[in-house]
């Protein structure tokens, strides 16, 4: 317990001083995205890594949050601070209702159903031009504003986004180590045994699906208010796959793993500048390699690799 708190405090401190180390105008912007993607990866990980239920449509919930926030604050000139919780409630309720039939499905069928759901949402973003602006997007979304500070620069946005991301992380870490988190992992390992012990597997799955959608929606709202412009292209099938890649690479069932995965996949395209769109080849290869050789993700695989290397060295020394 003490160790967990220490780790989280150290991580938070690292995040807070990171801008001093990497102070660079452009990189700050990328680090803002690392924050948003970390939130999204955690949301998907709660569902996939803890409850063992796959979703290939999470970009849809992310997009719904962004569009609801965007539309409420532009067309209906609502205060962003009000628009964000409204969006989260709407998306959460929607996910709950959809979750009831969807989570009866298992494995491949669940994957296909959520994928279909994500694509339908994407098509709606494109086609309801009057509401969303269609493929050309929605612009003029206001920045968040509090106590005389407008979050309109990369540095301010960094602290805003990471403040929320750290809160989401702490929330998820607490949840994972609690009665509910244990029940989720139990359902993942053996659904029937969990049920026999009194865990309402179905209800729990739907709850966590809704929670996951709410966190995604929150990330979407924040994305809309920091970017001030959104278009459907950010919320398509490919982004759902990118999120999946983050979770798998970082480590299923690890909150810090989600950060690692999100950071790696967000920074990768910056490192591979000039590779243009060919980064998808790397995503594909990464997904396959990770599942085959490091199914626990970086967060477990790298320490295991170290141990292996060092123990081999030690043995070599003896021989």
């Amino acid at each position, binding site marked *: 317990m003490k160790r967990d708190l220490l780790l989280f405090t150290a991580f938070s401190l690292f995040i807070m001083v990171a801008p001093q180390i990497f102070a660079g105008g452009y990189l700050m912007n990328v680090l803002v995205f690392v924050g948003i993607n970390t939130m999204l990866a955690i949301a998907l990980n709660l569902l996939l890594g803890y409850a063992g239920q796959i979703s290939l449509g999470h970009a849809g919930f992310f997009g719904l949050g962004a569009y609801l926030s965007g539309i409420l604050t532009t067309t209906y000139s609502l205060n962003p601070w009000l628009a964000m919780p409204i969006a989260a409630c709407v998306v959460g309720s929607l996910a709950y209702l959809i979750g009831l039939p969807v989570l009866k499905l298992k494995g491949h069928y669940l994957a296909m159903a959520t994928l279909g759901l994500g694509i339908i949402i994407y098509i709606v973003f494109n086609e309801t031009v009057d509401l969303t602006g269609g493929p050309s997007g929605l612009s003029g979304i206001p920045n968040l504003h509090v106590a005389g500070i407008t979050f309109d620069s990369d540095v301010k946005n960094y602290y805003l986004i990471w403040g929320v991301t750290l809160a989401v992380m702490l*929330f*998820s870490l*607490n*949840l994972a180590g*609690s*009665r*509910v*988190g*244990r*029940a989720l*992992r*139990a359902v*993942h*390992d*053996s659904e*029937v*045994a*969990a*049920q*026999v*012990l*009194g*865990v*309402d*597997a179905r209800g729990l799955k739907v*709850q*966590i699906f809704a*929670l996951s959608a709410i966190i995604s929606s929150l990330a979407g709202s924040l994305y809309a208010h920091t970017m001030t412009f959104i278009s459907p292209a950010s919320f398509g099938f490919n982004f759902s796959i990118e999120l999946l890649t983050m979770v798998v690479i970082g480590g299923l*069932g690890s909150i810090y793993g989600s950060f690692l995965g999100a950071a790696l996949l967000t920074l990768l395209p910056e490192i591979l500048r000039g590779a243009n769109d060919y980064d998808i080849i790397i995503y594909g290869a990464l997904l396959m390699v990770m599942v085959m050789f490091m199914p626990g993700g970086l967060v477990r695989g790298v320490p295991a690799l170290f141990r292996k290397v060092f123990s081999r060295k030690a043995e070599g020394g003896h021989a």
Partner: protein
Amino acid sequence: MLEVTGITQIFGGVTALDTVSFSIAKGDITGVIGPNGAGKTTLFNIITGIYHQTAGTVTLEGKNITGLPPEKLARLAMVRTFQNIELFGGMTVLENVMVGMHTKSSSGLLACALKMPWSISEERRIRAGAMKWLEFTGILDLADHTAGSLPFGKGRLLEIARALAVEPRIMLMDEPAAGLNSQETLGLSRLIKQIRDLGITVVLVEHDMELVMDICDRIVVLNLGKKLAEGTPREIQESPEVIAAYLGDDD
């Protein structure tokens, strides 16, 4: 305590159970025995809400529980173990038993994630309770091991500890001695008696006749989906029908 009336189960035209009825008295250890394919496990799956029978009713302490899902039965203090121990392999031994305390705790998703004071004290209570059951089954020293890495015999004890954490009034065990060596079986029979002494009614499906005859107060014999006999171990041992069924005599 538990009453089973006219249970019939038909799988695609094959009758697995045919109007099976019996009742189990409070505080007894009851054995359900029978040759392979007699329908013992199917019967267990029906009683514990995993299958839905074609016909018949199950009553627990006077309450009709026919068709209730397993998670509801746990709240009515009925729990079971599985033939191929179903552990939560990725979790520690202690965490496994803590899941068993699920119905004895109530913090919801938000309370847990926000670490509300009551959920923290509840967590402490869950941990202490789980430790108690690990001690009872004698595997307290393994608390921090990963459940998936336990040897089979210890896994069996963990599954029993986890089921006890539900604080059941009735516990169904599907072949608890399967896969255990003679030493472990001996320990198991002691443990089952201890469980009975806690006031928990025990029903077990078992192939190990020595164990069954040693610990059971009453025995129900199934053969080819029908109840063949019912009685004390001595009555069963002397029953000509049972002997015929076990020896495959066809007269």
